């Protein structure tokens, strides 16, 4: 076995740190749930926090590409899939919380919600997109889809927008936080569309 070089050790260490950071909120939530520390309405609290982390991690994922370009750290792309999958992880917890804890499999209510309440329709659509992206995130699928893979994965911007709108449409009057998320997402989309680097450098395949 060849001894790992320092750069590789750093990469592994940074991934471990990232895993811990990304799992932290879920563990903290689990701890809160186990110790009755989630306030008077724990199901609502779980729903809100998992949704928040899904959107937060999704926004961070979108930021990876411009940040690594601006910071001159092309290697950071290796964190993108991990962050995106954690965003999907929290989005799935969020959806399952709604499905199981909140509605307790009340399918008629769930179908009605998804069909008739735009904020739920949009949120569900975002989750479906993330599901498709998560499934096709493996190296095998990247190879199989070739150039279509990148096109497909541009859906992440649509999913993020849908997630932000889902949050905005949910709140009653205090729109500060969803608007912060939406602004960040819109800025990241603009950056992506104008993407100065794509003109200079050839695209990675």
């Amino acid at each position, binding site marked *: 076995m060849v001894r790992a070089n320092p750069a590789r050790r750093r990469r592994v260490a940074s991934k471990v740190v990232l895993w811990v950071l990304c799992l932290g909120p879920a563990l903290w939530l689990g701890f809160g749930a186990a110790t009755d520390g989630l*306030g*008077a*309405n724990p*199901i*609502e609290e779980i729903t809100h926090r998992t949704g928040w982390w899904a959107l937060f991690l999704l926004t961070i994922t979108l930021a990876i590409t411009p940040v690594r370009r601006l910071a001159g750290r092309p290697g950071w792309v290796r964190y993108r899939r991990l962050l995106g999958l954690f965003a999907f992880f929290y989005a799935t917890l969020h959806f399952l919380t709604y499905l199981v*804890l*909140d*509605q*307790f499999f*009340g399918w008629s*209510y769930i179908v*009605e*919600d998804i069909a008739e*309440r*735009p*904020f739920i329709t949009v949120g569900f659509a975002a989750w479906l997109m993330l599901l498709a992206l998560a499934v096709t995130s493996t190296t095998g699928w990247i190879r199989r889809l070739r150039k279509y893979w990148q096109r497909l994965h541009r859906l992440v911007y649509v999913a993020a927008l849908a997630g932000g709108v889902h949050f905005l*449409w*949910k709140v*009653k*009057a*205090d729109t500060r936080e969803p608007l912060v998320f939406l602004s960040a997402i819109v800025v990241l989309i603009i950056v992506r569309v104008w993407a100065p680097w794509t003109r200079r450098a050839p695209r990675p395949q």
Partner: protein
Amino acid sequence: MLIRRPDDIRPSEVTPYRVYMNRRHFIGRSAKAAAAAALVPGLLSACDETERMEARPAPPAVPESATKGGPNSQERSWEGVRSELDEPLTPYDDVTGYNNFYEFGTGKEDPARNAHTLVTRPWTVEVTGEVARPAVYDLDDFLAPHAPEDRIYRLRCVEAWSMVIPWTGIALADVIRRFEPTSKARFVEFTTLKDPEQMPGQRRRVLDWPYVEGLRLDEAMNPLTLLATGVYGRDLPNQNGAPLRLVVPWKYGFKSIKSIVKIRFVEEMPETSWAVSAPSEYGFYANVNPEVDHPRWSQARERRLGEFRRRPTLAFNGYSDQVADLYAGMDLRRWY
């Protein structure tokens, strides 16, 4: 516990004791009312009230040990108290730690965290508009002629969560009769204090401050409608709308306006805060109605705090017998 049903057990009988702190208030008020009546012979109604109060049996003495210490000692006296449908009371900490009071922030736990800046004494209530005797009252004078009552009511938030809360307060109908609205008065409008110094949430324009709510006069006169001064037998905590708030148990919680400084009798339907903020989502009536959904979520079911499964929401929050008549012939889909 539903009241004004002759055969029902009165909440005061269910309640093991009248809690000490409130009893002191009660006695203080009675003394004041008696003094006022003695000084002003024309204040007959106040006199009647006083007599009625004094005719009630004296509350049993509470052992000193039960009144000292934290909230627990007082909570204990409410243990096992259940309302009519066998619904246990929502714990004191949840009632006072989880609610909406945007004047102190939009999070559910913000009011409990931030409301300490509210100064509730001295407090004045302005009674104005189409009324025989408009005046500004000191809170104690405002309350003095009326006998406080305990009422256990469901509270159904428009956000589809609910609680069961033991209030102490006075019947709004008695207060209205005392102020003698003129024949022009068709609605009652209530206004919350506006003071961003005391209410930091008002520094941001989440709503058009001050908060305004209103009732049709007959709704206001309904025996269920309460002006609350206490919860769980103690004075209202600031976050629950101290020192004086409305409780309209058959309407969504946002109708039950908190920290009231003005009561105005008017001819036209008042422009109420949420109805102004989002008219397609919140109407003036805001009666609890499982058949009329909020545009963004279902109102068919609700989560009672402390319960896992959602329970069906009841028409008029379970108070149909007492209030459905008020809306006879009205299209409740239109007048949501």
